[in-house]
């Protein structure tokens, strides 16, 4: 039997005003809807019946949300609908934020990157080997919190409603780099917009994953100019392509004009329910290796990761330090 989609209405607003009007209407009518950008994360979930919207809203007609520009103050503004392939190829991005291009280039495969968007990548659903399954598989095991059941197959003692109630892991490849770059999200709704720093966006839960409100979409991602900050990203995955990060590590070094490191920052993906991000100032005369050790220890502590990946949890934890050190070598520290 081949997996078929369940029925839904399909809307494809042409342009931002139409999108806003549609969001307002759907909100008023209290319709259950889902937004699709590239659809590369949403489609598998629709097919597996993990989401069953009444209305599917495609963003692909909203041209205003695609594109990359540098604003007068040097802010790099990227439309949420920008395809990852375009991000990878963009000279602006490569020039201003090469680490973002590099991280985007590590997502999935070339075919998927042609479709996948940056907004979608920041919202890619948390994954769990007990959830991202077919309906048949999910009838075998007792349904878990994330599919409206009342067990967690990972933390058997977990309680519904108590954060983190769900351990599905955060897997976006671009979030760590954007966190280190202090990116902001411009969130749009029917009327109006608000700005949320990415570091305040995610929540410590595999189900209630972020602070996006019903009826809100990501419009743009803004990256303030960052002088003296260099970022490196690398991910642990079984294969060179296609695999979600078993661990993704972004490492940033901020230097003064003389090239002396002032701050070391680390962000992680693939381990917990949300991305981790820490900054460590390097005080004058402080030993760099001590700061690095502290950064590794901090990141290691965050990783309350569970066995739900190809790689065992201990191994992934061990790799955090290895990846941080390798990034620092590449950054010339």
């Amino acid at each position, binding site marked *: *039997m*081949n*997996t*078929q989609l369940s029925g839904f209405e399909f809307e494809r607003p042409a342009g931002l005003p139409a999108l806003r009007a549609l969001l307002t209407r759907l909100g008023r009518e209290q319709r259950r809807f889902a937004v699709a950008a590239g659809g590369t994360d949403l489609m598998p979930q629709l097919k597996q019946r993990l989401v069953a919207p009444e209305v599917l809203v495609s963003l692909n007609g909203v041209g205003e949300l695609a594109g990359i520009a540098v604003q007068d103050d040097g802010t790099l503004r990227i439309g949420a609908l920008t395809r990852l392939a375009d991000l990878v190829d963009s000279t602006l991005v490569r020039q201003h934020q090469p680490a973002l291009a590099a991280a985007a280039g590590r997502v999935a495969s070339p075919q998927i990157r042609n479709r996948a968007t940056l907004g979608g990548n920041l919202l890619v659903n948390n994954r769990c*080997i*007990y959830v991202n*399954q*077919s309906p*048949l*598989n999910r*009838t*075998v*095991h007792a349904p878990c919190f994330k599919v409206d059941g009342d067990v967690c*197959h990972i933390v058997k003692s977990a309680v519904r409603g108590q954060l983190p109630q769900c351990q599905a892991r955060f897997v976006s490849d671009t979030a760590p780099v954007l966190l280190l770059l202090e990116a902001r999200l411009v969130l749009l709704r029917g009327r109006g917009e608000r700005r949320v720093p990415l570091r305040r966006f995610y929540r410590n839960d595999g189900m209630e994953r972020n602070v996006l409100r019903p009826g809100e979409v990501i419009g743009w991602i803004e990256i303030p100019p960052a002088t003296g900050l260099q970022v490196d990203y690398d991910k*642990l995955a*079984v*294969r*060179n*392509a*296609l*695999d*979600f990060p078993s661990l993704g590590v972004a490492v940033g070094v901020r230097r003064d004009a003389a090239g002396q490191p002032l701050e070391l920052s680390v962000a992680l993906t693939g381990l917990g329910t949300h991305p981790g991000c820490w900054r460590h100032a390097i005080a004058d005369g402080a030993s760099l290796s001590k700061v690095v050790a502290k950064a590794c220890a901090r990141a290691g502590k965050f990783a309350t990761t569970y066995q739900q990946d*190809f*790689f*065992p949890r*201990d*191994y992934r934890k*061990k*790799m955090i330090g*290895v990846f941080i050190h*390798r990034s620092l070598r590449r950054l010339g520290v």
Partner: protein
Amino acid sequence: MSGYNIVGKPTPQIDSRDKVMGRARFTDDIPLHNPLHAAILRSPFASARILKVDTSRAAALPGVRGIVTGADFRRTFGVLVISKDEPAMAGNRVRYIGEPVAAVAAETAEIAAAALALIEVSYEPTEACLDPRVALKPVAEPLHPGLGRDNNLHKRVEQCYGDPDAGFAASPVVVEKRFSFASVTHAFTEPHATQVAIDGRGNLTVYSATQVPHYLHMAMAEVLEIPEHRIRVIKPHLGGGFGGKSDPFPHEMIAARLALQTNRNIRLRFSREEVFISHHGRHPTTLTMKLGYDPQQGITGIDADILIDGGAYGSFGVVTTYYNGVLLQGPYRIENLRFRSRRVYTNKPMCGAMRGHGGVNPRFAAEVLLDMALVQAGVDPCQGRIDMIHRPNTLTASEFRITSVGLKAGLEEAMRRSGWNEKYGKLPYGKGIGVACGFYISGSAAHIHRNDRPSSTVRLTIEFDGMVTVYSGAADIGQGIDTILAMMAAEVLGVGLDQVKVVVADTQLTPVDLGSYSSRVTFMAGNASRNAAIRMRRLLVAAACQLLELPPPAWEKPEPPADYFRQGRRSPDYSSDYLGPNPDYNDGFRLANGQVTHLGSGRSVPYLDAVRRALDGPGILQTHGTYRSPKLGGNYKGAAAGLSPTYSFTAFIVEVTVDPETGFVKVDKATCAHDCGTMLNPLAVRGQIEGCIHMGLGQALMEEIVHYDGAVQNAGFLEYKIPSAFEQPEVDLVPTPSDETEGPFGAKEAGEGPLAPIIPAIANAIHDAVGIRLTEVPMRPDRVLAAIRKAGAA
């Protein structure tokens, strides 16, 4: 004579254009008239009694035309006559998660899916047996009570040749380890699919993605309880099998039953998840092996205790159980061999035949242990192996008849080309080079079904226009047998490949070939095609003689050599098929360039004139050719296991880079010496070997089916990791010819043998790189790293 026209030239497969351009029709592409869409309801329990299946609500759904359940099937089946233990649909109990329980045929796929949701099944869950060690313990209700056992043992084989204990006692080096191997699956491209057309007389035409049209034909007649002549099986283009389509399957029976019930055409295809659930992959294995070595004598003994987890049903499992032991008899000389091999039933999807069937996991153990022993004895791992490789024309402990062996020279050349002597033991930490060898059957000498018919029969015709058609039941599963059939005929008849068509794998039109398994087709169907063409050639030469007014050549029936190595024992039929050695046709003619030329006089007639003259009398030009194996082997129970008319031999030298901080292994280069006799089509041989490397890489480093409470948790290509193109290493193929006399134009198998040794070659290279011995496969980075750290701590 060796100047071949066709044989030995790199030849794109004759259907490659159709495949590349999207014209080739695979099973699900065949447009049947107004088919019903079938869907299967599968068990969510690993082990349960079925109390009731209520299909009434589903039946009432508009658009539903047919429903079948276990009650519609009385007979079980199985590819092996000795274990027909599988029902087409679960009757009163289910034995694995995903087992078919009911099926629906409806006007659309959507209706079929909706109908499944309306079928109510009451299950009474029973305790599932998931652990193969537990399966050996007594249990109240075994999976298959009919075997009369109090546990879930399916098959036990114990054999002993020579005296291993005495061998060990006298050996300066004895090594022993326990190994474990994860469950891996074929991961072929085309999911299972079956379409069934039914005509007004109730005859079925079954299109199915199968490697074994003939076995499917017979099994279907038996399960559906209708005469064989009412069933016609056609295998369309097929997108890969690797053993995963070499059984008759429940879904094939289900589709046919639905066609009979509804009197409508049926279309059934699997999702990828269903493919994983149907499985039939390599048996997860734990084994302990002991190996003795003496630099003067070679391997002094092997003792192995093997436990394989068969899953819910038999499939090829009895053969697998034997192969795990008997395939230790090569590629090296060994007189003292003892093994105990056991297969158990568990409540998981069944295991069966997968490329390298039964030989892959024990080969890993033997090659790793041998490597340890050679290192301990201070013998070079390549040189030590070379010295022990079977010599041509020898008998092994259980009477495998080893005829042609070209591996010695091949491995020597591989050593040179890979720079072995400059690299082994001399590379910097993290870089390593390793070697391993293997051998494999080239078709099974014994039939699954006992009868005296040939293993393969080919019919060959030439029409008035000179077009040659080869009719064969052989199943091209992508390996290229269609092309080989055509090449054999073209070579013998002196025509171009474009002048040969093949009609294949259609049980109404083509004579029987037993199927694509055990690496038998090129050897057996290739021989049958060659033999049919030789008979045809005689008709053409006789016609040419008439036209040239020459006396007809007097053919003497060649007598097969009488010794055992050429003929085997007790071979009454074998000699009747024997048409002489390759490729001296002994007729004094040359067929080439559209001419039939008398070599003695230099006079010739056009090929077409000879064809037409030959047609004058009978109006039809038709011959047949067959292949049957010489009868081989001893007279005791199990003596037939692993007997083959000939064997391929392989060596791999592999270079790796191991990242000592992460444990990641990158295979940089594979140098392969594979003795498949004559490479009939070097392009296809290269394809097979590169494919073996890729598949071996997957099992070696990443592939692993994960179960949770008996359910397959990674039933898709995102979480079941097969290597991508990035992981494929540079490949160097070392020509490794051998003096094979029984294969068509001297050919042996190339599809399976090269799989087994690549895996231990990687393990041995990892040892050279970082000094660790891994015994758990896949050799995942975390295992590599743990072993490196342990070695560092020690």
